[in-house]
């Protein structure tokens, strides 16, 4: 019962946050709202008994990516008014509304066939999940099945993920990392001229 109440509250906040993100023009406020959105999703994951996912969402979504987006905002701060005008609308407001209503009702229609949350007959429970739950303790001696699957059964996948993260760091270093020689040289030259 309490789960349902918490779910409804969190989902209401989620919807409010997304509407606010759509309507606000201030990028700084939008980045902050993105962080709040991630934190609310992390709360939803906790309610759904997925603390591992909630951890990741709270740390990466609400923490690191907010900081990275703020750092990017500081770099690309708009100094002048935009030099372009917004393109004139070529259609009425009814067209997007109809598209949204049709898509939304198709999605709602799709949820009718989804098995209810935590149902033991759900296809995701009857495939390999049962094998892991029954055997992971015997095979690895690790009580946390998520860790057993990630690090042992699917160790090869996780190696790939780590390599992806490493590659991302290398790519960022190559693109914007390190010192930028030209402005530094200029500054030195100017200092030299001042002294001279």
């Amino acid at each position, binding site marked *: 019962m309490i789960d349902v109440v918490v779910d409804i509250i969190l989902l209401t906040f989620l919807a409010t946050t997304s509407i606010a993100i759509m309507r606000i023009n201030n990028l700084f406020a939008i980045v902050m709202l993105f962080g709040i959105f991630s934190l609310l999703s992390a709360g939803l994951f906790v309610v759904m008994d997925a603390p591992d996912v909630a951890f990741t969402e709270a740390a990466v979504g609400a923490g690191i990516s907010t900081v990275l987006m703020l750092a990017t905002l500081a770099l690309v701060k708009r100094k002048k008014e935009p030099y372009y005008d917004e393109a004139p609308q070529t259609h009425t407001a009814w067209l997007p509304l109809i598209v949204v209503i049709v898509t939304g009702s198709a999605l709602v229609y799709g949820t009718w066939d989804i098995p209810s949350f935590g149902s033991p007959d759900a296809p995701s429970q009857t495939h390999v999940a049962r094998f892991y739950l029954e055997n992971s303790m015997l095979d690895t001696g690790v009580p946390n099945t998520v860790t057993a699957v990630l690090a042992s059964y699917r160790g090869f996948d*996780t190696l790939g993920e780590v390599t992806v993260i490493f590659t991302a760091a290398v790519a960022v270093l190559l693109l914007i990392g390190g010192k930028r020689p030209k402005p530094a040289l200029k500054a030195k030259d100017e200092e030299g001229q001042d002294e001279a």
Partner: protein
Amino acid sequence: MKPNLILHVIAKFIIPLILLFALYVQFHGDFGPGGGFQAGVIFSAAIILYSLVFGLENAEKIIPHHWLRILASLGVVIYAGVGIESLFLGGNYLDYTFLGSNQIAGQHLGILLVELGVGITVASAMLILFFAFAGRGRE
């Protein structure tokens, strides 16, 4: 940046707790929720908080850039090295069974080492990303 007393005091109080929590998530990941990825992100979040409050230069003194690059590669090397070690001991690649005296001990050791590699790489990769973006703004 103007020094803010309240921020400094709170950050000094919170950062050790975040680091400790990251280590807990790292090494208790077998038993509780969490694991290398989450621990690495939480660890890097503590240092990012430090550099937000105390300035980028001070944070770079704690972990110099060339260390971060070595550490990011070291994590991948630990992970792949565990796989190669299990090859040498007679198993398949990343089959930890032969790392210990029995299957459970081997799996435990293997998972611990592999998670350690994940944690090191994720923490240093996140810090590399942050320092690259934040260092770009100061000129």
